[in-house]
């Protein structure tokens, strides 16, 4: 299902290259910084994310969303990788685990039973349950090389 090798812990250098040419290189530490004042609402990040996580670039599987916030104003919303994350706390099977290298809370397909509790638990609405797959869709910071930040043409997403 997932085309992204990221969920497992591995050095960034070992990740296969993304198809397509990124706008710029990103470092390897993070955090992911959202800068809505630079966002033009072009939604390149949504597309980059969708392709990083599915063969066919299914936008329904994008982990980042752009919301309009007034005339010519846009806000990017994506998982904040909370310290005391609600999704981690409600998951009955410990299927959401923080990756020590990237700090991302990653979804473990080998543990998840698809109960959907995580989606309803996130107070920010960042966790999304894909109904056809019956699995949650969750930002994994692409294993330390977030496609959204690499492809944003306006530097409105930074991986510092």
């Amino acid at each position, binding site marked *: 299902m997932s085309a992204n090798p990221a969920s*497992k812990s591995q050095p960034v250098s070992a990740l296969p290259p993304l198809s397509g040419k990124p706008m710029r290189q990103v470092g390897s530490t993070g955090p992911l910084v*959202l800068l*809505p*004042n630079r966002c033009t609402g072009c939604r390149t990040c949504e597309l980059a994310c969708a392709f990083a996580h599915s063969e066919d670039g299914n936008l329904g599987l994008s982990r980042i*969303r752009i*919301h309009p*916030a*007034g005339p010519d*104003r846009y*806000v990017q*919303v994506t998982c904040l990788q909370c310290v005391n994350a609600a999704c981690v*706390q*409600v998951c*009955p*099977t*410990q*299927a959401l685990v923080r990756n020590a290298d990237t700090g991302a809370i990653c979804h*473990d397909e*080998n*543990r*998840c*039973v*698809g*109960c*959907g*509790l995580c*989606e*309803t*638990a*996130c*107070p*920010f*609405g*960042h*966790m*999304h*349950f894909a109904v056809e797959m*019956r*699995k949650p869709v969750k930002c994994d910071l692409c294993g330390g090389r977030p496609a959204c930040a690499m492809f944003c043409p306006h530097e409105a997403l930074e991986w510092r």
Partner: protein
Amino acid sequence: MPIRFKINDVAVEAKPGEGLLDVARRNGFSIPSLCHLESVPAIGACRICLVEVRRGRRSKLTTSCNYEVLDGIEVSTDSPEIRRHRAMNLELLLARAPSSEAIRKLAAQYGVSQPRFGPIKYNPLPNCILCELCVRACTELGHHALTTVGRGDRKRIGLPFNKPADTCVGCGACASVCPTHCIPMTDTLTKRAIWGQKHDFVRCSECGAPVITKKHRDHAIATKGLPEDYYDVCQSCKQIATSQRFAAIVW
């Protein structure tokens, strides 16, 4: 003391009591499987995760999901012998679940397209392979709503005694984990139908979208000690609220 052994000649380590399939996956070896998740007890029902385990001079084929790792074993995850047995098992599973996409695909990889057996006469849940992954997931979640009903060739999965069960909260985990996606579950705006029962949804107080079944909410609130209004708003509406909060900070 970690357990040390080899998979396809590569040295790996594991904790005592771990299942071989879990250790293999963690180390990047892929073994086909249909009825196992790390979070539920393994029972070795589908018999697709077969591997060969050598211990000293003795060697045997065994299911890897419910095989506890031992020091010094040598495991191989693929060989003509293993493939032959997997193919046979897939042929049997295909006879039970002839229209399951997942089984058809896996069987095709093993050169099986048409089973010599079947069609089976009794399967009230078409494509169910009786692996009980749904039963184990439901039990693991603490709902204990599912079980096997009947014996022998009349065995099937259902609610106990095939009667309506109060314990089912309509979470849908059984339908999620089923390897053949054979458990019918239908959602409308107001209700979820599963196992012959209907469960009312909590509706989003902003937009009216279904959020979670009322029983599942009550179970989650009771077991996790959450506030009563925790499930009042749906995911999309919460996300919009978040974007507005961000916007208020920036501008």
